[in-house]
């Protein structure tokens, strides 16, 4: 990313679109358990927003701003999703059973909270983690990420 590129339009639009994408992905995530949407599609949309930022601003800059280890992220997602299923056993109902209730949350008013959301959160994290890991592994070439590649060759 040494070269000065002429991408003013892309940069300006990204500032706007990335936020729209992130916002909409969160909406999809929360809508998921009883309307179209869910952790999977929400996760994909979040990943696409992050990738758009990567394309526009370059890998180094984004890694400074978002220092996330995506591998850990998807493992955490897997863990949350599995545990949300196991949690049902603790209450004496079958694996993966779901329940929901209405709670009065300040500012939002009466809101429906479902345990399906926890499972969805796991899926969301797993999807973002996996997508980003795959794309960044393909996108980073040998010179940029020497350490990781050397490890792979030896393994």
């Amino acid at each position: 990313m040494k070269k000065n590129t002429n991408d003013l339009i892309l940069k300006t639009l990204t500032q706007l679109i990335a936020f729209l994408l992130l916002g909409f992905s969160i909406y999809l995530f929360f809508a998921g358990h009883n309307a179209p949407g869910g952790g999977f599609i929400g996760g994909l949309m979040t990943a696409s927003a992050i990738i758009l930022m990567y394309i526009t601003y370059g890998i180094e800059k984004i890694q400074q701003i978002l220092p996330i280890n995506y591998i850990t992220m998807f493992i955490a997602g897997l863990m949350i999703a599995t545990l949300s299923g196991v949690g049902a056993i603790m209450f004496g109902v079958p694996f993966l059973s779901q329940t929901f209730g209405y709670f009065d949350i300040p500012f939002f008013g009466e809101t429906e909270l479902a345990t399906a959301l926890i499972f969805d959160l796991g899926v969301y994290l797993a999807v973002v983690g996996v997508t980003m890991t795959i794309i960044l592994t393909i996108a980073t070439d040998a010179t940029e990420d020497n350490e990781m590649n050397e490890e792979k060759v030896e393994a």
Partner: protein
Amino acid sequence: MTNLMILPIVLPLIASALVAFFPNKLNIVRPVSMILSVIFTIISAYLTWYVFSNGTIVMQSGGWDAPFGISIVADPLSMLLVTTTYIVSTAAVFYAPSSLDEQQERFYFYTFFFLLVSGVAGAFMTGDLFNLFVFFEVLLIASYGLIILGNGKVQLRESLKYVLFNLFSSMLFVISVAFIYAITGTVNFAQLAERIESVDQQGILTTVGIVLFFVFAVKAAVFPLYYWLPNSYAVPNPVVSALFGALLTKVGIYSIMRVFTLIFVHDTGITHQIFLWLAVLTMVFGVIGALSTNNVKLIITYNIIPAIGFILMGIGLYTETSLAGSVYYLMHDMVIKGALFFLIGALVVAAGTSDLRKMSGVIQKFPLLGWLFFIASLVLAGIPPFSGFIGKLLLLQGGLQQEEFLVVIIALLSSLLILFSMMRIFIRGFWGEVQEGITTNRKKVRNLTIPAAILVSISVFLGIGAEAVYPHIETIANMLMDRTEYIDSVLKE
């Protein structure tokens, strides 16, 4: 208690995520994996005991009753195989640190390992055809991760073959599930079994059944579809080969057993007769393969194939005795194949080569390894009083009852040849003058021998203690022949 039946599937899944958090801290990951495996084995053994004493337990996940939800069916057959899986995999965890180099262990070996166990346990326990496909994918994805550990040129070539073959058969699997759903309107095993008789066009069902058989036959390495197996199983690290040889092909043959004793039994004259002849061909070609090579790893890998033939023969004969034989042989083969792959791994380390022509006299330096290998060979070939004998005896009895004399004769001949192929390794590798280049790293060989010794002693027990084990196997065979019990326990809570 019902809800706990998910544990054999979920616990390794959690463990796989847990050890993935710190792949580089091997001094934590190794003991944690070992302890967890032992605990899981104990839990699943307890659940198995519970199922054997209280009958089949069905868990409807998410509280959705069958046939709408996904049923996890813990019947004696499934639980027996799950526990055997856990025993073999626990031995593998103890074998892994000495067998793999650290770089490979860091590359998420334990994560893929637990994922594989979870997938195998799930495939054994699921009561739903589509869910079976899902668990097949889980274990296949884990196996893709394991097979490329090592990253050599040959290995990459063989893994590519492996991946392509499995992808193709998975695709065929989904297609046949779709066909079955179109014909019967359900994918739940129990409901399928109920509806299969009322379908008008039995011919279509038979065809779909055969397609499904080919899917499973690819995974199980039955005769025309086995040629991908020997090389791709022989190339990876011994611990990975052991897991594959002991577990993956067995999932395929288990699926054949389940599907063709529970669902597609409407036209056994066609389907099961085909199985019988494929079984014979599988035995013959597997043994010929084992005799054709001087690579000790390949000899053991080829020996997976005739074992599948024996199990398939029991399914093809389709009597209570022969099915009992199949189940016994299946269980015995999981244990002994694990042990043999471990022993061969140790032998290759000890001798410094996998070429039989360059080995000799290993037993003089490593007597324990030599004698364990000798016993394991006898077990594999089915010499009384070991466990292979009990399984084969039942199978041959079943064959004689059905008056399939030719099949019985070929089966006997091929077990003789199996013994011959194993004794070749023993005579040429272990006897004779001490060769040059034999390893001085005695500690490593010892660490590799101990897990194998445990598995060998279990399989010796399965033979000598047959009197204690056999009644349970008979119960399982009874249940396989009488489908109503399975159907009732899933559909009528």
